[in-house]
């Protein structure tokens, strides 16, 4: 039995589970990660486009986002691996009064929480992004400390470091049951074996509700899908992630940036949402997003699209993650419902999980956790999705 017993078992080697393994093993725990795919990051992590921002509209995500930014941006200097981090900033552009109002409304809160963010008038914005369509441009926000990196390389780095530090990973194993005795979690059963642990973390992303159900816990996580694409590489011609939150028929916001490799990576939020687990490419995405991008930045019309894919956003009703201990089962910790922000929140969430397991909270944790509580009402609305 000894060989199959751990302090902590993490379900899912994705954007949350993999860094969580690293921080937990560093905190001195014996850690096992169970993953249904053949290698880390093969579900939603590799489908993420790579944006990293703290520019949210609530203290919890701002706090976690700032931590994530800190970890990713400092990684190369600290550990050597290049995660293709680029501090290009985030720029929300506006062409209508509505969006200008929305962005300006959250600005004071963002500033009060220590975010480096400002409103740029149209003229300043055009200096930053000379290729932007100037017609009706009202201005926008710029948060220069945000940026982007490679989700694949980041996850791989967390994985290698975690493994080196002693964390174990079991790939191609499906969790089929959770072992619970007298209201306490005892371990995880997979289609291959049984593993014992007093703490189990549900970091199963889009599949988290299914896993929680095995413990008799109901969580409101349902995936919807978004499509993304990457272009050929060209010489760098802009720096920030450009976000346009105008809703139009068929889609809500969309965003794009130029990666460290020179490639443009872009994604759109379909409206209405497409619920379910289907990740097969559709014919609607490319014409829809490319029209909007060219309208916004005509210069993009000549760049060639290389590849396209579809990924899942594990959504919650209010757009906030679910992080915290369950009341129903002792030792069962939820870290899911990242709503498509697993990459940008993951490292911050992972540190928080390590503190929760070690019972060494920081002062800000209580407030953060109250926003992300599995037992909140889920009625508020996220402003900057």
């Amino acid at each position, binding site marked *: 039995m000894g060989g199959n017993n751990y302090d902590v078992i993490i379900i899912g080697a994705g954007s949350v589970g993999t860094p969580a393994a690293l921080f937990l093993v560093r905190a001195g725990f014996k850690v096992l990660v169970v993953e249904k795919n053949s290698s880390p990051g093969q579900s939603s992590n590799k489908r993420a486009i790579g944006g990293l921002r703290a520019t949210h509209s609530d203290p919890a995500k701002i706090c976690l986002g700032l931590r994530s930014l800190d970890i990713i941006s400092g990684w190369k200097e600290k550990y050597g691996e290049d995660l293709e981090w680029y501090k290009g900033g985030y720029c929300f552009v506006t062409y209508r009064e509505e969006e200008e109002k929305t962005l300006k409304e959250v600005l004071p809160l963002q500033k009060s929480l220590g975010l480096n963010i400002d409103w740029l008038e149209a003229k300043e914005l055009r200096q930053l992004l000379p*290729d932007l369509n100037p017609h009706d441009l009202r201005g926008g926000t710029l948060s220069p400390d945000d940026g982007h990196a490679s989700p694949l390389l980041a996850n*791989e780095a967390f994985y290698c470091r975690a493994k080196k530090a002693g964390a174990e990973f079991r790939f191609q194993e499906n969790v089929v049951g959770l072992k619970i005795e007298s209201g306490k979690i005892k371990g995880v059963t997979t289609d291959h074996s049984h593993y014992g642990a007093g703490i189990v973390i549900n970091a199963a992303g889009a599949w988290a509700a299914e896993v929680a159900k095995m413990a008799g816990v109901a969580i409101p996580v349902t995936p919807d899908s978004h499509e993304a694409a990457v272009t050929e590489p060209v010489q760098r011609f802009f720096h920030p992630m450009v976000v346009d939150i105008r809703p139009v028929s068929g889609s809500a916001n969309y965003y794009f940036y130029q990666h460290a490799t020179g490639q443009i990576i872009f994604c759109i939020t379909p409206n209405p949402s497409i619920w379910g687990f289907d990740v097969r490419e559709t014919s609607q995405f490319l*014409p829809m997003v490319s*029209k909007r991008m060219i309208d916004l930045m005509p210069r993009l019309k000549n760049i060639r699209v290389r590849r396209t894919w579809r990924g899942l956003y594990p959504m919650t009703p209010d757009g906030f993650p679910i992080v915290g201990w369950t009341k129903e089962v002792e030792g069962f910790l939820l870290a899911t419902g990242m709503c498509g922000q697993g990459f940008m929140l993951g490292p911050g969430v992972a540190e928080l999980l390590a503190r929760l397991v070690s019972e060494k909270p920081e002062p800000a944790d209580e407030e953060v956790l109250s926003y992300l509580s599995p037992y909140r009402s889920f009625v508020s609305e996220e402003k900057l999705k």
Partner: protein
Amino acid sequence: MINNRLDKHPILLVTDRPLFNFYWRGQKLTAREGETIASALFANGIRIFGFHHKDGAPQGIFCANGQCAQCLVLVDGFPVKSCMEMIKPGMQIQPLLGLPELPVLNPEEKAEFHPIKEVEVTVLIIGGGPAGLAAAIELGSRGVNCLLIDDKHRLGGKLILQTHRFFGSVEAVYAGTRGIDLATRLEKEVRKFPTVDIWLQTTALAAFSDKKVGILKEGKEYVLVKPEVILTATGAREKSLAFPGNTLPGVYGAGAFQTLVNRDLVRPTEKLFIVGGGNVGLIAGYHALQAGIKVVGLIEVMSEVGGYKVHKDKLARLGVPILTSHTILSANGQASVESVTIARVDEQFKPIKGTEKTYACDTVLIAVGLDPVNEFYLKAREFGFPAYAAGDAEEIAEASAAIFSGKIRGLEIARDLGQYSGQIPDTWEKTAEILKSKPGQTYPESYLEKETGIMPVIHCLQEIPCDPCSAVCPRKLIEVDKNDIRKIPAYREENDSRGCSGCERCVVICPGLAITLVDYRQNPDWPEVTIPFEFLKETINPGQEIILVDLEGQELARSRVNSVKSIKVNDRTILIKAQVPKEVAKKVSGLRLQTQIERADEKYVENIPDEAIICRCERVTAGEIRKLIRDGVRDINEIKTITRAGMGPCGAKTCTPLVHRLFREEGVPENEIIDQTKRPLFIEVPLGVLAGLNMKNEERKP
């Protein structure tokens, strides 16, 4: 001034198309109308097209088939695939140095979009080669509505590169006809049917889960096609090899070579070396000789070549050294190929130290087999389209088999659509199997004892599906088993009391050039031998001394040409007649063309396969991938994550088989390897095209 254009060809028609100027790095050069940018550059002696943005490695032609992106050049500021784009007067072409700059546009310009056109068709046929054309003919003749798309400028697929006569069955697939002529014939036939719509320069980009296929029409318009059925007849792509120097300009596929020479009529090399003794490599060698290119040698790693013996014999007789049990160690050169190093291999196919040889050459052709282009078929199946595959996309075989498989698939689709109520004839399936079969048994040579009169000598000793000789003999003296045309032909004098008339039809029709005539009537001691010859008539004249060789190229006699003729039913094969001693007359099967065999320098070169490039798009080496495999990585997705192998423009088309090979080398069983996720698009397409932007003419094409 360099002019590497073919002005004459023994088989191909070289027309006098207009010449015009274009510019390479600002220098004025001449192009001929109808050339691609790549062929125009080759015609001017240029074969380094750019330098890789990652490590500055020189880049040149590789697939010549629009599949990879090694041949990118900048045309008027836009990167284009030089192998797919036609050259135009005044074009300003620059090598690609580093990453291109996306052209700056006026941000105030109003973008105007048109809705993306959606087209409903019954059958979408992807690929207008032998299989696709044959299927379209079956469907068209039954009035089925089809859309046939092909990414090239003309129909025919790889048929248009084939100057040799085809094997197979005369009845089923026009055996004995040259590939180029077959392309014309099939195209004429298919164009007769009004329900078959044909879009050229059109590429299928993606099959989508909502049952639409994204198509780039005529290189400029994005169209969504909704087919009831998809037939994938996308042919094959050439396998690649990993060795030091494998990405140097001058290392490319045999198919790419045939494209440059036989389609575009340029001479891309002076001295060629061929790696791989399958039919593709052997035929490429023959095509090179026909274009006046020296073939320094051909190697095959197995102990026997895999292609048809008649193809091999043809090359050997013409004087090309064929070395079996040999492998390539490296292609050598600074900016492009200057030499090749080979070595003998042991039973485990490992190079034997001390057997290395280096040959001077400027080009190394890789002809180590083909892989089906079947991504589309697999994706369509996965997404629930009724999908079929034909030709090489289904199973790699000869073009004659592809025609027949297309025909069967066409009829099956018609049946499944309710447009044909009969069955697929049993004999079709059998013919298809025969046409697909690999070479069978080889028999020893044997000759009739008779030394009077005139008779054919059949030097065809290996079982291959082929029957034109028996079909063409007016007196039915040559027999091939009708039920199984793989059986070797036999001369049966007893079938007609008059015996052989010496009409020479069998000599000119034989695709393997494996029939000669021996005529004892004038001089029984010095009979006259008639030999087929597919080279320029003016290169051989009466009175000229020639070296007559046996089946495998060994010298038998020296003689002088009596006469050079062509017969009426001839199709560009000429006949050489010469007298030889009766002792060797029946053994003579050809004449030597290359009389000077290249000498190799003995030189030991340390083989460092770790430096060989596996992913040429992202410049990932074998060493980087091997290290990961040794660290326990089994998921190719993870290899891609860490190294970027497979993330480039070709979409892992080139590196996937090489990565598998590395796994094999490391002793990892195939069932432990997790393949990477394949995603659309098939080729890169400008955002504006996908958006339905009204692009002006002067703006970029993909």
